[in-house]
């Protein structure tokens, strides 16, 4: 294994551990962190997260990794599994290091530059039309659109 690969693997493991810890501590997943397989689906029959948790997941990822995510960042691609979240974090970090942002993060470019965490919740939503704003927080629209199996509720509550 080359030193570069070795360091990538080590870093990836570290990010995975932090994602697992976040899932246990912030999302209350009832497992030991190291028993959460990267291939575990986040929603439905996997970890059982739902759309309300998706909101918290976005905020937690931003807090933990210093990310600035656009509201639609966690699309179906990223929200599938634990490993996909790790991929997303790594590609975001790599892009930031290279001075660019990967595909899918463009919307947050301004927010990322501002250094204001609130810019994500606020700034990221400004460009949305009224019709899109239902998904204003967090990937709820995307989760529903991904057609996840049972257990994934649409983000709207009824109260």
């Amino acid at each position, binding site marked *: 294994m080359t030193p570069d690969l070795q360091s990538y693997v080590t870093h990836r493991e570290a990010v995975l551990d932090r994602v697992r810890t976040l899932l246990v501590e912030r999302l*209350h997943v009832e497992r030991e962190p190291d028993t959460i397989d990267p291939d575990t689906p986040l929603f439905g029959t996997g970890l059982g997260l739902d759309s*309300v*948790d998706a909101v918290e997941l976005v905020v937690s990822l931003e807090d933990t990794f210093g990310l600035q995510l656009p509201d639609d960042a966690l699309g179906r691609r990223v929200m599938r599994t634990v490993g996909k979240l790790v991929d997303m974090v790594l590609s975001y970090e790599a892009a930031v290091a290279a001075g660019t942002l990967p595909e899918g993060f463009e919307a947050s470019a301004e927010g990322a530059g501002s250094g204001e965490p609130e810019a994500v919740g606020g700034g990221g939503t400004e460009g949305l039309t*009224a019709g899109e704003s239902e998904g*204003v*927080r967090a990937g709820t629209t995307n989760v529903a659109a991904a057609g996840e199996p049972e257990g994934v509720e649409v983000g709207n*509550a*009824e109260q």
Partner: protein
Amino acid sequence: MGAAHRTAAEVRGSGRPSSQDSRRGPVAITGLGAVSAVGSGIDALWRALREGIDGIRPITRFSTEGFAVHTAGMVALDTLEPDKKTADHALDFALTAAREAVLSARLEAATVAPTRIAIVFGTSLATHPEGIHRLAEIVGDQLGAHGPRVTVSTACSSSANAIGFGRDLLLDGVADVVIAGGSDALTEEIFAGFHNLGLLTPAKCAPFSDPPGTTLGEGAGFLVLERGDDAARRGAAPVAWVSGYGLSCDAYHATSPDPTGSGMGRAARGALADAGLDAADIDYVNAHGTGTEANDPAEWRGILLALGERASTLPVSSTKSLLGHGQGAAGVLELIATLLAMQHGAIPQTLNFTRPRPRCPEDPVAQRTPRPHAVAHALCNSSAFGGANAIVTIDAPDRPAPSRTVQRRAVWLLGAGLVLPGIDTVAGLALCGAPERLAGRLPAGPVPRSLAGVDLRGFDPLSRLLTFATAEALRDAGLSLRGPLRDRAGLFAALSRISPTSAHELDSSVKERGLLRLSAPAFTRVVLNASTGACARAVQLRGPTTTLTTGNGGGLVALVLAANALAFRGDADVMCVASADEIDRDEPADRLCEAGACVVLGADGAEPHVRFARAAGTARQGDAGGAAGEARAANAGGAFVRVAGWGLAGPGQAPEAMARALAMAGNVGERPPLDDGGASGVEHGGAGLVDEGGAVRAPAAHPLLRTAVALHRLRAGERTSVLLAHDSGSCAAAVILECEPRETR
């Protein structure tokens, strides 16, 4: 049907005195009061409705900077009487609306004893330093209403549920006048919570239309309710009638409605059956209609399930387009809007309608002003976080639904479950006042880590205590809820506060991350009924549900209401009654005790698939169609315990509650004196559960812990009957348990 399968009612036979029957029918609404985004007073509400001018405005009371939404239906505080204002908006709204209701009913001129005036107060997220039950107590004190004060907190269906219970208190003779309704104020935390859940639209709430999303609101509404003959006697003309109500639990998700609409459908069918009305009698549905993507289609499906073909031509509109979503006050405010329109020969409109959304009502009454249309009977829908649905039927003044006599069904105490973490079983039993010899009969111990087949992720400690106690009580009762029995099994919870763990989680997320990033999952758990909803979901109790508080120790009040529901209503055969205490991390664990307690009541089914016939001292859940599952011996080796009588009364009136319970039990008086193990015969409190200073160690669960111990003593043959009484400070309650006579066993 063999003897073993005879129902308890058949066994006990026709010898029940006629006092066991109950007259069920409409109760008169004789007074109205409202405070809302369109102004203070009923006239302001009617003017806004008539002219189609909504109360949704930019929020000025707090900053919405950074949020994507800036509007709500806020009460203009300067419309409240200045001398009546306190710092507590929800209380101010309530006092203003309740006073208006009492004035419009001309109650001062009536000669009703203060102890015969009850308050049923619905509120969702109101707060008070001493607990939200204080709002009802303060309103009661100020208005001179000293009957029972019951606070219902089922989030956004609170006030609709409160109106239903208010009717029950009248029909059951607990009160002669009931002031029922609710109040809630919008805070920036509530606004941020809904915003972060993605539920708000930046435009105005446009139910059944685009764009989806709701607009929050606030306010208060109260009704004065009386029995029709009382109102007639004092010359008070009914504004309308409350003829029935239905409750149900989705048991589906913390915040999303069951998309099949089955919960809404059950509540609507329950309400129709209670009112003695058919789908064809309904002229209009005032929908919950929040405007969110999830609510509107689910609610429409529920209406279709309950009303069938009638729904396709039925006007269904939502008053949230006028007032915003008034949270706990929404149900009563929208009901008032409905009957104001009815008084004027019209039905309320849905404002802000742009273009129809799929799977929504065919006729949303999308127009600027009310539609001229005579309404004799209307349904008023509410649903809520925790899956709590409440639907009320109202009738035009000249078209009250028919009254009828309902024979009281026998109610059995089938099982009990305790959870006492942090102390070992024997010590836990001692705390409950149970002798050690009962160990082995009484389940008590630490909270299990898991429940078979249930994902407990997101269950806070309070939800776990409630859930495990309930699961244990069902196990103790020998009931496995399957198939249709789930729809006829309900959960009434009495709690004193939300989970301290969830409260801290929300608070710290706000402190550390700001309102814009507050924890959405924690926000969903800070309504009082969140743990009730979680428990119902885990155990699959989909029948009638409520969450009430009387401060501490509302368990007996909940038990009385549940027994009443079984005895006189047709929509449940099993009712779980549960309470729990979670200790705050800052509270002294040596003086407080974490506890969960649940008792299971059952009534011989109106439907053939549920029977609790006695057979050799066992509960038998017999079954004609195989739907209800296999019966198991529940009270094996013990007596079969009946809830023989129950009563409620105002604070400080435990003797009245006991007298009512004794009168209801009837034949208890013919028996030997109550067997209480040599004491007074009244189970006030167990020594172990009350510390030297007189403080109760598990304050919320206390009455149900006592009930559980009483059940086991009765089963063990130590007693033949027990009178349990508790005065919570808001409401006194009494329950009589008695063993079936040995000779008939």
